[in-house]
């Protein structure tokens, strides 16, 4: 028997996050500790974890083929820490978060973080399931914890039912895969499936589609997107922002790792399949967003369509595609988090109707300008970073000669322009009819949105540092 404890040297950040989960739950139980400033502590832990992942190097298969630590997993983990850091900042500025439950919220966030870390590094279906569940379960709870909106419980229940349904389908598919190949590791799986009597048979597609269902649920790709608008609308806004970024990124990373060890002919089929899903996802997300009147629902559908765009990078199934996805993700995080933070500041109570933002530019010019940058970037308008991200996505897709996908994505970019610009039109051009209102938000909120908008402009003009960062993302290195 091999000693497993020395393995812990290779996964310091995982251990740290695991310990922090325990500290958060125990800390709440001890009255003396529970009065300490937990937010500062959590930010400190995240910074340490970020540095730990930055210091690591090399590729390592750990725990008997369960997880793979490589530059891919390290860089994605760093992204997760950054997202959670911004979520924590948003949470401490939002009225929808119950400040009595700070310890629990951070504990659940760390649990999600651990789950996402295992999702990006897993190379075994069992670890995949554990990772997905570690992300799902605290997400349901966080959605239910909206202090102001009682509908959040109903939304959380919908989310739970849909999530368990998706997990059930995924496990059923995995049981087929295991029955066909007798293996649960990704390599063993695809190798086992390469037999000529299995490849291309109905059961092959059924098993893989069902398995991908669970991952599609996490990235809210069609046809597993139904939960998204309801859950996003009723959840506390910082949690909505978090859910629209981090689990989606983890799901995409898991998908890329799952497809990393494909044999050539399988890669051909799966590329076609993923590109169909991508086209459906972005089209549905965009056209559903057109008729939304609630800003959170609108951004929910916009995040669905962005999942579709990001799936373009997955569909090409090569290193270039994976790097472009990583290139686009930080941009997506910036623009999405910035937009949500602006909404937290501008909204009163549970009213998130777009009409209620009329004439905001005259009250909060800096905030609305920053929001406009985020929105234009989401739409992919040239001088901003979102355009560069989309440009690179189109480039890899066209290099792979997937012209249909490129055309559909192009049409979708144009369509998406309409609803992003509509929001800005309401804020900037429409005359204010609402009486004078007081904003209770702190100036830090505006600083946060502005600090999301500035890099978006900067990377839109000079994106080389981002490209360098993305070029480090290589699987198995």
């Amino acid at each position: 028997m091999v000693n497993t404890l020395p393995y812990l040297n290779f996964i310091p950040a995982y251990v740290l996050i695991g310990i922090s989960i325990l500290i958060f739950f125990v800390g709440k139980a001890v009255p003396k500790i529970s009065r300490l400033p937990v937010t500062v502590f959590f930010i400190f832990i995240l910074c340490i974890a970020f540095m730990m992942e930055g210091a690591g190097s090399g590729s390592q298969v750990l725990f008997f083929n369960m997880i793979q630590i490589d530059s891919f997993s390290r860089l994605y983990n760093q992204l997760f820490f950054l997202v959670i850091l911004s979520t924590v900042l948003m949470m401490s500025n939002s009225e929808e978060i119950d400040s009595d439950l700070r310890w629990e919220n951070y504990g659940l966030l760390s649990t999600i973080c651990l789950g996402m870390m295992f999702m990006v590094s897993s190379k075994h279906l069992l670890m995949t399931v554990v990772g997905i569940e570690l992300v799902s379960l605290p997400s349901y709870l966080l959605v239910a914890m909206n202090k102001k909106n009682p509908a959040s419980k109903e939304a959380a229940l919908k989310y739970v039912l849909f999530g368990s349904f998706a997990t059930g389908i995924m496990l059923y598919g995995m049981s087929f895969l295991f029955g066909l190949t007798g293996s649960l590791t990704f390599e063993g799986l695809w190798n086992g499936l390469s037999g000529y009597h299995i490849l291309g048979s109905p059961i092959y597609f059924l098993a893989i589609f069902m398995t991908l269902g669970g991952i599609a649920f996490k990235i809210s790709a069609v046809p597993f997107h139904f939960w998204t608008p309801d859950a996003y609308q009723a959840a506390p806004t910082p949690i909505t922002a978090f859910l629209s970024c981090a689990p989606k990124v983890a799901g995409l990373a898991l998908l890329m790792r799952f497809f990393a060890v494909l044999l050539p002919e399988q890669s051909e089929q799966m590329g076609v399949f993923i590109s169909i899903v991508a086209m459906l996802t972005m089209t549905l997300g965009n056209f559903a967003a057109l008729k939304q009147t609630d800003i959170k629902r609108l951004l929910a559908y916009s995040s669905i369509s962005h999942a579709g765009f990001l799936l373009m990078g997955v569909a090409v199934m090569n290193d270039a595609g994976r790097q472009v996805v990583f290139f686009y993700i930080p941009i997506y995080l910036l623009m999405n988090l910035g937009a949500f933070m602006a909404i937290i500041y501008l909204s009163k109570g549970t009213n998130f109707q777009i009409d209620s933002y009329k004439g905001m530019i005259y009250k909060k010019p800096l905030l609305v300008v920053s929001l406009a940058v985020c929105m234009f970037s989401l739409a992919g308008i040239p001088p901003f970073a979102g355009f560069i991200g989309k440009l690179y996505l189109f480039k890899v897709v066209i290099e792979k000669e997937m012209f249909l996908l490129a055309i559909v994505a192009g049409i979708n970019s144009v369509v998406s322009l309409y609803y992003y610009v509509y929001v800005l039109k309401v804020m900037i051009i429409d005359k204010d009819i609402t009486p004078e209102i007081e904003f209770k938000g702190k100036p830090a909120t505006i600083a946060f949105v502005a600090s999301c908008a500035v890099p978006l402009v900067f990377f839109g003009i000079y994106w080389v540092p981002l490209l360098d960062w993305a070029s480090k993302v290589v699987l198995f290195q």
Partner: protein
Amino acid sequence: MIGIPEIFFYIFCALIFGSSLLVVFSYNLLRSAFALFFVLFGIAGFYVLLGGDFLAVIQIMVYAGGINILLIFGTMMTGSISQPETSNPSFQGILTLIGGGGLLLILLIILNHTTWPSQSLIDHGPTTKQIGQLLLRNYILPFEVISFLLVAAMVGAIVLINKGERS
């Protein structure tokens, strides 16, 4: 020639099928929850027939003994439980029927046309020791990580219940 295991297979099939029909079509939510016990018990029977003795016992202990109780408590907390006749509207419309039937048909056709790389059922003997060794060796990471999931679930349940009591 039908051996004794096959007879038991069909007995368990009948048990599962009959009681799952009860689960689905009973208009009394509590009765559905109780009928679920027999479904879970029948699945334990399948595990025995497939040589998973440990799994069978766990199935009875955790699912039939624990989760089913949880479900029964859950049904007892539903608002309209005092009118058992209306608490569980069973028929959800023709579309669900088509959807469910279609899925069943697809699964039946595909699974029937597949040649599974099957092994003959060898008598392995008790499996508990092997499972213990695997848990401490190959599956040590999921084994430890799963406990975080359990803790998160527990904390979440307490938070939501405390919140519900306060409001």
